């Protein structure tokens, strides 16, 4: 039973459009063996409650989305029974997946894994992999569908901290993607703090008791190596307890900006100075704090254009009783928190949100919001009748004007109580709509197939030539009956997770877009008039040609 009150009609609309329908397919897809292990053994060590992420990656380059999951870890280095730190599942192109961790070279990874980002950092045509850990992070080079660890060789080592989310993006627009790694707090078993309730019983600590640690920025040298340029690029000092990072271009100057959200500290908005260096304007822009000037527990983050103003809005997952932050750009460098005005605030008031992302779930042309929830204190949540440890995910449908209605569902996936952390989307079954992957702390993964009778669609894949090969930072706009839709090719966003790197435009009842404009990071702009819907197309930079990339019937996409 699904219900949702929508007071304004969508433009364009489909007379037969339905509310979103997700079918849980985890087991039949072959993902049921996965279980995240947080290592909890009664000591209430802080990292236990925070992981982990997962997401979509086409590791074998066949055009079908595969799934990568982080298994977490345990604390004793001596045990022979290590849980698997990384799991990778190959898409069998029939709705099922096969565990190919060993074949992909990831079976022997020893780490307490947290999150990941995947991109073609060496521009050789395949997706490489960066994994964040509690301890040294790991960079893997993809060598034809098999990963080889190149952390030391690539110069990424030396970050023996607790990292969270990571993002590949081309900060200086030199055609090679750089890497930003969000770091959280200074914690180790040796420095663990006893946080009691009532004097004796240890509970998980509040982040305020730990010191934040500096996040890192690595500039891609273009030769397979990176150099730590955190300070030179303007990212230092930010001791911010960072958990989420999203790329956007809020001022549309063509240079990628970064939003970094922090747990209990002000959030950061790094404006690209137009030369690959950055200035934090979080505080003065209004993004850093709540509407009352308070730092909240920022975890997941995403950014997108959700209304007809053409301006960006940033969405931030926060702690229970803090609401999801909805920061709308109101011109220039000013953002105003419109959590309540967006109608997301009150329904999210009691949710503790980690992963969140914008996607057009019903393909009606505007970006909707999914938030993945789950508390961190199994022992404290009993105090408040409505704040539970396990919480259902929430889906908010965009009315088209930046105001949202929560989809209320009885009995479906949106009523499942979860201890959710990571969240990602991708069209793994190539039916044009966006499916959802959610990870749980110390629990399973969930794959929800989108079976909505939604609108028509156009999906645009890009491949850079002068720009970075993945086309990260490419801005795409589609015009449809006077409505401009905006999408961006990115990694990062959400929490510890990665969604597909494809621009999906929902067309509603329309069969084509009036025009498609692609703004490459290199500065090249390519325009296409009247692009037919219900297809995947591939644009290779500078060719001026949209090639069909439909592979639903088993063909291999030239991706």
């Amino acid at each position, binding site marked *: 039973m699904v219900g949702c009150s929508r007071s304004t009609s969508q433009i364009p609309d489909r007379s037969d459009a339905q509310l979103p329908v997700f079918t849980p397919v985890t087991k039949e897809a072959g993902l049921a063996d996965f279980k995240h292990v947080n290592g909890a053994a009664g000591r209430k060590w802080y990292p236990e409650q925070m992981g982990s992420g997962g997401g979509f990656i086409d590791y074998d380059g066949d055009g079908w989305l595969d799934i990568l999951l982080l298994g977490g870890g345990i604390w004793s280095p001596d045990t022979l029974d290590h849980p698997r730190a990384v799991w990778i599942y190959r898409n069998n192109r029939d709705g099922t997946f096969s565990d190919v961790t060993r074949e992909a070279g990831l079976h022997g990874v020893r780490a307490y894994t947290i999150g990941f980002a995947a991109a073609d950092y060496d521009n050789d045509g395949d997706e490489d992999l960066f994994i964040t850990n509690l301890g040294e992070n790991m960079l893997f080079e993809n060598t034809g569908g098999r990963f080889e660890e190149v952390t030391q060789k690539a110069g990424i080592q030396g970050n023996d901290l607790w990292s969270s989310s990571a993002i590949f993006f081309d900060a200086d627009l030199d055609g090679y993607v750089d890497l930003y790694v969000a770091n959280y707090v200074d914690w180790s078993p040796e420095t663990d703090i006893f946080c009691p*309730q*009532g*004097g004796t019983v240890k509970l998980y600590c509040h982040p*305020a008791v730990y010191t934040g640690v500096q996040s890192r920025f690595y500039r891609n040298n273009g030769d397979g190596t990176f150099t730590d340029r955190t300070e030179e690029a303007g990212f230092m000092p930010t001791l911010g307890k960072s958990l989420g990072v999203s790329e956007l271009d809020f001022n549309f100057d063509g240079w990628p900006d970064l939003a970094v959200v922090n747990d209990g500290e002000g959030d950061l908005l790094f404006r690209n100075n137009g030369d690959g260096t950055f200035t934090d304007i979080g*505080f*003065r822009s*209004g993004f850093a*704090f*709540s*509407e*009352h*000037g*308070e*730092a909240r527990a920022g975890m997941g983050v995403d950014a997108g254009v959700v209304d007809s103003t053409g301006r960006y809005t940033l969405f931030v997952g926060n702690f229970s*009783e*803090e609401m999801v932050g909805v920061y709308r750009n*109101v011109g220039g460098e*000013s953002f*105003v*928190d*419109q959590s*309540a*005005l*967006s*109608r997301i*605030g*009150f*329904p999210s*008031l*009691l949710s503790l949100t980690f992963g969140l992302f914008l996607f057009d779930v019903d393909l009606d042309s505007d970006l909707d919001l999914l938030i993945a929830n789950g508390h961190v204190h199994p022992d404290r949540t009993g*105090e*408040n*009748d*409505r*704040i539970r440890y396990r919480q259902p995910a929430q889906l908010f449908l965009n009315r088209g004007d930046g*105001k949202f209605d929560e989809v209320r569902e009885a009995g479906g996936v949106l009523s499942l109580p979860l201890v959710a952390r990571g969240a990602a989307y991708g069209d793994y079954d190539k039916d044009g709509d966006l499916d959802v992957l959610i990870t749980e702390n110390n629990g399973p993964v969930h794959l929800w197939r989108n079976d909505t009778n939604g609108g028509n669609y156009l999906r645009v894949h890009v491949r850079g030539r002068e720009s970075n090969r993945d086309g990260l930072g490419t801005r795409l706009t589609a015009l449809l009956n006077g409505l401009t839709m905006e999408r961006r090719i990115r990694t990062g966003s959400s929490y510890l997770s990665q969604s597909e790197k494809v621009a999906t435009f929902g067309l509603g009842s329309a069969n084509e877009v009036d025009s498609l404009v692609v703004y490459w990071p290199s500065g090249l702009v390519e325009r296409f008039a009247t692009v037919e819907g219900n297809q995947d197309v591939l644009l290779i930079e500078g060719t001026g040609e949209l090639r069909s990339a439909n592979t639903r019937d088993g063909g291999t996409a030239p991706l």
Partner: protein
Amino acid sequence: MVTCMSTSFDSKIAAMAVMLLVVAGCGGDRSDMARTEKQRLGLAPMVQQFLIEGERAYKNGNYLVALALTDSAEKYASDVADIHFLRGGIYTDLNQYEIADRAYETTLELDPEYRGAHMNLGINHARRGALRDAIKSFRNEEALKPNSNLYLELGRAYAKLGVADSAQAAYEKAIALDPTNASAIMWLGQLFEELGDFDKAIEYSMRGASLRPDNLDYKYIIGSQLFRTGNVEEAANYLRPVAEARPWHHGAQYNMGQVLMRMGEEKSAQEYLAQADTAQQWQQEINEARGAVERNPNDVRNWIRFGEAHRNAGMPDRAADAFWSAVALEPTNLGLQTNLATVMLESGDAKGAVLRYQAIVRMDSTFIEAWLNLGAAYGNSGEYDEARVAWGRVLELEPGNRRARAYLSQLRQMAGS
């Protein structure tokens, strides 16, 4: 969670209102007179006096005296529900909810129809996040006799539970019972704000503020609502007086900074934002100190830290509340007594400070710092003869005391001029 208005303050007032009524014997309709009301008629004058003075001490934040007076009253009349009700209020303010709850339960055992006990139990439940229990208690109170503040608290509990329609209904009942209940009107506005209906939010906030035009909390709420709806210049008119009067109000400083940034007045904006940063640090220290108090209210150090945090932030009246609680735990600690008197003086309560210093020098007549401050408190009250006596006492104890000499010299100059 935003707490733009102090529910605890409102609750305390509500509870006190009940007490004032009952102690004064205004029991209402005599035909269905409750047990306690009948009992009051035959109460020994001494016990009644203990209760009235105890209530006054409680109202002034003098918890130690208030507790002593309830103990005295109980000694002579242990079955009087009023005594336990008053004790419940005191322990609530001291964050000792379990003791407070027991006191209210005793109140209800003695008189199941005692007005205010269910409500205060509900408030204590709500403070601990047990909102369903709070609502049950509020409903019990409603069954006895509803009042406007009861529905206000009921609305707050429903709002915190995320049950918006019940919250709205409760607020509307509160307002219907008392159209001048500004808090209820403001909280209804706050609910509309959370629901995203800013037109109604501003309408109700304006209405509430019209009942208390000098209330800076209300001005701040309206200012922040106007800002978020794009009425930047109008927002500035509401936010500016709050930011000017309350350097510690980080929300006002922050919003004022943002407003000015939007208006293009970047230099002024930066000043407010810088002050917001400072205020944020003060608030963080207050929050951490509050957390320590909530975790362990029996540790006097937590109350001292809480008081000092408020004092550092320029909130001496709230610092005084914290020091009162500290003094209740260690009544013979002269350092604490002095801190309390000092913040009372800083908050403009010179008469209260005089009483404190007098109490201190009674406990230790050789405490020079207390005599010096007593003189200063007298001086601030315009009681110069008394100030002269106090500083003279310092010179008796320490003939060479420079400060006492300087003060006395100033007094002579004032007399001469």
